[in-house]
């Protein structure tokens, strides 16, 4: 799975996610990635999210929308992403990752898997990582 979230100079937000699915899936299996609110969400009033990981779990937990609602309750992009990924993993015992932008341009990156590749550009700077705490 791959994804992107963006914010423009007027604070306009968008999110996009695309996937080939899971190894060994049945023909016809649909994943969280095509489900608005699980794989992808964007609302200029709050933020934008793209998720990845165990698709059936993300779908049942509505992970992208959970992160949006956590930010709506006042959590930062980083806190909301970390807390919701952890909560989902604890509740359903499968792992995932997510990237988030708040409507103030704050960045959130979290994953309960072993690794997740990510990168963002802000001005002339490019930030990136794949291991925990990068």
């Amino acid at each position, binding site marked *: 799975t791959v*994804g992107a979230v963006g914010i423009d100079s007027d604070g306009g937000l968008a999110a996009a996610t695309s*996937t080939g699915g899971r190894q060994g899936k049945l023909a016809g299996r649909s994943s969280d990635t095509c489900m*608005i609110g699980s794989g992808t*969400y964007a609302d200029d009033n709050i933020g934008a999210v793209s998720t990845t990981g165990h698709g059936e779990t993300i779908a049942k937990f509505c992970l992208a929308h959970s992160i949006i609602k956590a930010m709506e309750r006042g959590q930062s992009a980083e806190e909301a992403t970390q807390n919701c990924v952890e909560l989902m993993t604890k509740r359903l015992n499968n792992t995932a990752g997510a990237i988030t932008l708040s409507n103030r341009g704050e960045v959130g990156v979290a994953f309960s*898997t072993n690794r997740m590749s990510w990168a963002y550009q802000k001005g002339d700077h490019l930030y990136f990582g794949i291991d925990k705490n990068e």
Partner: protein
Amino acid sequence: MEPVILVHGGAGAISDDAKAQELLAGVKGAAKTGYKVLTSGGGVVDAVEAAVRSMEDEEIFNAGLGSVLNLEGEVEMDASIMVGSDLSAGAVTVVKDIKNPISLARLVMDKTDHVLLAAEGAKKFAQLHKVVPLQPGALVTDASKKALAKWREKQVEASAELG
């Protein structure tokens, strides 16, 4: 507001360090691609679409070219896109032989009042909008075939363990 483009290349075990480096190179390139669109007059939707397209086109990512295979050895893909200003959204699911599913999802958003199109209907819709499907199997790679074979072996071993 300072524009930002943030991308991910997928979460998982990723135990192979060489693959990890390739993934990092790919996400850095995607972030730059999206940021360039955003800062040269494109909209934020164009920017996230461009960033995802660049990763769909790279075999190392599980999307577009190089997607994992289903049990029948085929590539079936999902994608979705959403705009924060008016909550408009578009998505496709179980699509085959489409080079960039994220652009097809965007067409669903821009050209229909649906949110999600599936399988054969999505493919017909693509052709209606001049998105020419690839030859069947064009998105299957040697790496994805090997990965499925390895997965099958593990299943056999696991069931053998159960005795």
